[in-house]
């Protein structure tokens, strides 16, 4: 048992850190640091820089641009990227559809889609959730019916993140209506320009537009857009969801939020002193940091188990990372609210913030504190709510 990093691992970490700080424009990283959304152009620019360096999709097979990294290296790459406030390579491309295509699709699909996905030449979005199928994803009702050389898709998807920018969507649709719930689902790739697709924005309580409803009305896609086998889509979806085993805690993001909180609290005056010097505030902050340190160690333990687990098989310990990771991300938003104090109140749209010619009201980041607090409530809901994570642990670990 050796609980410190090797010299090689530390060197790798330094290399990643340097690269992220020097190669990714400060203009982009500043936005994330201050709690603003980055634009889709920022996303594309960043991912192409990473891809040029060969580190946009390290978890893919080497043949398709991946890296033969150890789990520790993957973790360091991710953590340093988050700490440096670098927009993460688009998850729908890199963590979701890419690995599924690489694992299950035809060679033709791979050649056609993988390089473009890695370089964000195609922007993918996810067509999984439906209004009636949230935590209970397998109850989805969107259908795809074979008609000659085409699939005809009808139904409605929701919570489609950044669907407004997407070129392609990967869709779970029911292709065997008679089969049991999880059976009879297929995994289809759909060009967003196909007639019959309507994207309707959903405005979230922070005022932003991140998610959408996507309607399919007699949408015809070529039969060849089916991934893998017909009616095996649920297996691919499980593979997709099971792949994200360690990054789910987003510890680097919480760390960068805490760093920002400390910076701002050093400028905030309380009576004669500074907020950062108030014992009570410091202890609240330290409490969150201690939990985060524990979670980081927990994550390292999960990372260390990675070697022993097959790809795509979920590790129930990921549920621990998801539960605590989401709680801590949310805790950082509450700490930021404490820092900003009464100045959380003024509301401005992102457009107003970015183009503003009037001075901001209150301390730096005041305008993003409440929207982030509101928006990040989603973290304990999406990707398998924390209640679902507890169900998983109850069954898989405790044996109930």
């Amino acid at each position: 048992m050796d609980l410190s990093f090797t010299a090689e691992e530390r060197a790798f970490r330094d290399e990643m850190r340097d690269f992220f700080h020097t190669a990714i424009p400060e203009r982009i990283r500043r936005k994330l640091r201050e709690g603003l959304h980055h634009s889709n152009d920022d996303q594309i620019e960043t991912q192409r820089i990473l891809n040029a360096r060969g580190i946009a999709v390290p978890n893919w097979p080497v043949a398709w641009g991946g890296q033969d990294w150890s789990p520790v290296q993957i973790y360091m790459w991710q953590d340093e990227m988050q700490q440096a406030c670098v927009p993460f390579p688009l998850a729908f491309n890199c963590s979701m559809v890419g690995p599924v295509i690489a694992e299950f699709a035809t060679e033709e699909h791979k050649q056609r889609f993988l390089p473009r996905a890695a370089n964000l030449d195609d922007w993918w979005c996810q067509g999984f959730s439906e209004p009636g199928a949230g935590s209970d994803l397998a109850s989805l009702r969107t259908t795809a019916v074979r008609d000659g050389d085409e699939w005809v898709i009808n139904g409605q998807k929701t919570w489609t993140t950044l669907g407004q920018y997407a070129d392609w969507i990967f869709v779970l649709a029911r292709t065997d209506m008679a089969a049991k719930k999880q059976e009879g689902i297929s995994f289809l790739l759909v060009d967003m320009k196909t007639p019959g697709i309507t994207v309707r924005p959903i405005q979230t309580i922070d005022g932003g537009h991140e998610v959408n409803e996507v309607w399919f009305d007699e949408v015809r896609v070529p039969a060849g857009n089916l991934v893998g086998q017909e009616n095996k889509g649920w297996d691919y979806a499980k593979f997709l969801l099971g792949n994200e085993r360690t990054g789910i805690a987003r510890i680097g993001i919480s760390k960068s939020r805490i760093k920002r909180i400390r910076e701002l609290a050093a400028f905030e005056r309380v009576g004669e002193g500074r907020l950062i010097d108030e014992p009570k505030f410091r202890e609240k902050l330290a409490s969150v940091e201690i939990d985060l340190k524990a979670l980081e160690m927990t994550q390292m333990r999960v990372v260390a188990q990675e070697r022993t687990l097959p790809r795509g098989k979920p590790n129930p310990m990921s549920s621990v990372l998801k539960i605590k990771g989401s709680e801590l991300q949310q805790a950082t938003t509450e700490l930021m609210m404490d820092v900003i104090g009464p100045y959380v109140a003024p509301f401005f749209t992102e457009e107003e913030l970015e183009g503003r010619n009037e001075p901001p009201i209150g301390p730096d980041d005041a305008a993003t504190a409440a929207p982030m607090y509101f928006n990040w409530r989603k973290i304990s809901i999406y990707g398998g709510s924390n209640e679902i994570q507890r169900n998983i642990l109850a069954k898989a670990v405790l044996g109930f």
Partner: protein
Amino acid sequence: MDFDLSDDQRMIKDSVERLIADRYGFESRRALMRNPEGWSREMWAQMAELGLLGVAFDEAHGGFGGGPVETMLIAEAFGRGLVVEPYFATVVLGAGLIRRAGSADQQAAYLPQVASGELLLAFAHHERHARNDLAHVAATATEQDGVWTITGEKSLVLHGDTADKVIVSARVAGETTDHNGIGLFVVDAVGLNRRGYATQDGQRAAEIAFDATPAEAVLSLDGFPAIAATVDAAIAFVCAEAVGGMAEMHSSTVDYMKTRKQFGRAIGEFQVLQHRAVDMFVNLEQSRSMALYATMMAEEPDAAERARAISSAKVAIGRNGRAVGQEAIQLHGGIAMTMEYKVGHYFKRMTMIEKLFGDTEHHLAKVAQAGGAL
């Protein structure tokens, strides 16, 4: 000890609840907010007509002669409706200051206009670095030839963008954080340098700069006691408002749990979610109790006792409200994250109430310094 309402109180309750039920549904509220000022003058007139604006004023001032209980009933109903009209700024803060600090003549001059809905007020008090210190006043007022002029910058002035007159705190003596030497002035809003904006919870506020701006009246040259008393009453008001919002969040959650199906059954059949809805209920009832306590103590003459009780209530409401709001979102799931669904709006209002006039930590420290809550 008697929790029953008098006939008059029941009448007010019925009247305000009917107004909210009839005119303040989710879609109606959206429509009201689409007015250029962010709220509805027509609704304001209706509130005046129902006697809500003057409910706490003497009958001589066009009021109803009510007390904290009557105000609490309105606040709770407004909390359920997420009312956006400037009641809090005009009636609770503005008129509250005039009632507590103004002379008989001043009260007679201003209050009837408030009661009738003609006069909108705002309280320009907070400054950038005041944080939670109510006595932090750096703006100054100086007198020359019997005219007071005010210089300084006021921030986060609730409904300051549409107020006809602004009550401004400004220092006439002492250091920035002294309790003594804070004057209270009435300034006509015409020509004021105001920058209005929306707030996270759909209310309005403004930054206001005063530059040798003349006051039309002096309410007090030692205004801190009136400010403290008014703010305590204002906290009691938002506590009751929060209870209204929490009650709505709770009932929405329970209703949703009974209809939303996942895994082949209503999610309300899952015991773990039931227990969490129960914990929301316990928090709601504890909050309701503290809003009653705040109401009971809102006009307590002993300022220290009053402040201790009000701070205790603010802590309880802040904590319970946060817990109820977060659970309401979580138990609904994604739907509650959308602007199209009502729960998120209550959550935002609760969040802003927690930060208003001192957050939970601030009031907890006050209670602790004062020797506890019992």
